[in-house]
């Protein structure tokens, strides 16, 4: 049962930031609300004020610029899923969005809302980490940017200081011979991930050496993490089956999975051991073709 609150619907970012500064901790931001309203209906969240930024059109855009892709925080999942330019240049984002929850949730839920919700099993963050994306947040005292992997601090906790709003996601143009892939393991297709793996591989020119690799794991720790040690196993080397499975073993040691009704800790580690080599190999294959 939702407790009543005062509802503000600012039309501009400036207005929104002013409201957030004014009401501080007593107010919460709502955009698509696809995750937040579940918590509110169950009485887990009951703010006195709500700043509804769904209507702020200045934060709702997909810009393909020279230095990369810019996505406004209030852009819906479905808009990303159906964007021709993203399909062409960043296909992994479309693959990820297609399997995110349901069409209804994707039509109204936003990429910014998902990232700020901070669910370690959320689909976008591992992919954005693999794509080496950065985020911009804005507050009354000005803007600051950070790599997306530093944004999630802990279980459902993100680096938003009081009165700040996430405004934009930036994704750099991938270097040549680069490909990024994503998969999530679950029993029901559109379910949250039991474990998810995003892998990005950049090949050296013509010699099959893995010039750079980024591996991100979802639902394997209190927040989405980069498997840095596993990356070191592969970086700068010629990829072999043995190396790939070693990377999988190493990645499994970097996780802090939980046991819950979906899977045990051991099983999540086992999945990381299997999916990291599998996805890295897939990225490698696509990179060769790119």
């Amino acid at each position, binding site marked *: 049962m939702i407790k*009543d609150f005062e*509802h503000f*619907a600012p039309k501009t970012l400036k207005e929104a930031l002013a409201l957030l500064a004014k009401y501080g901790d007593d107010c919460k931001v709502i955009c698509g609300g*696809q995750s937040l*309203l*579940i918590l509110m209906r169950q009485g887990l969240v009951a703010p006195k004020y709500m700043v509804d930024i769904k209507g702020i059109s200045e934060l709702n855009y997909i810009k393909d610029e020279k230095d990369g892709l810019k996505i406004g925080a209030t852009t819906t999942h479905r808009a990303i899923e159906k964007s021709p330019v993203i399909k062409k240049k960043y296909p992994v984002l479309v693959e990820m969005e297609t399997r995110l929850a*349901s*069409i209804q949730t994707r039509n109204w839920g936003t990429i910014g809302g998902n990232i700020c919700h901070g669910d370690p099993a959320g689909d976008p963050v591992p992919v954005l980490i693999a794509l080496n994306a950065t985020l911009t947040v804005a507050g009354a005292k000005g803007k600051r940017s950070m790599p997306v992997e530093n944004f999630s601090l802990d279980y459902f906790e993100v680096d938003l200081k009081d009165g700040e709003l996430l405004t934009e996601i930036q994704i750099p143009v991938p270097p040549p011979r680069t490909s990024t892939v994503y998969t999530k393991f679950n029993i029901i297709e*559109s379910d949250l991930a039991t474990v998810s793996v995003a892998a990005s591989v950049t090949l050296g020119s013509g010699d099959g050496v893995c010039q750079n690799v980024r591996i991100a794991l979802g639902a394997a720790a209190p927040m989405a993490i980069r498997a840095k040690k596993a990356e070191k196993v592969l970086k700068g080397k010629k990829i072999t089956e043995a190396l790939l499975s070693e990377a999988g073993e190493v990645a499994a040691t970097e996780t802090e999975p939980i046991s819950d009704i979906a899977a045990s800790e051991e099983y999540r580690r086992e999945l990381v051991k299997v999916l990291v080599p599998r996805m890295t190999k897939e990225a490698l294959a696509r990179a060769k073709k790119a």
Partner: protein
Amino acid sequence: MKKELKFKVNGQPYDIFVEPKKLLVEVLRDLVGLTGTKRGCNSSSCGACTVMLNGMAVKSCSVLALQANGAEVVTVEGLATGNKLSPLQKAFLDHGAYQCGFCTPGMLMSSTALLAENPKPTKQQMKEGIDGNICRCTGYNSIIRAVTAVVKGEYKEAK
């Protein structure tokens, strides 16, 4: 305190005052009085409350009513034109694409939105279109057959 909500439901404009906490589904059922839209869960996962908002399928239990300000909402009661059923409604009848009928309004809205956006979806896209809607009676395949029949043009659009 209450705020003004001006929006259209099935083409009919409404201008009402609602408490901010009110969800779109509550306003549609209790204030506008259209009980075709149902509710089946408390975790935004069953899809029985699906309506169309500005042409998109959304879960009306997961949209604040005030966020529908200025929007065009279509509910299952808005599918028929006068006494003529829509092609999808006729296809659902022919293919037994419902049994208890409680999820049917949601299924019809998801399918209608799917075809409005993409008149020629593949079978996989049809399945994605209704994947957000749980049905415990039919096993979904009859619904996919009904949507397929409409895509194949077996039903005329009601004039």
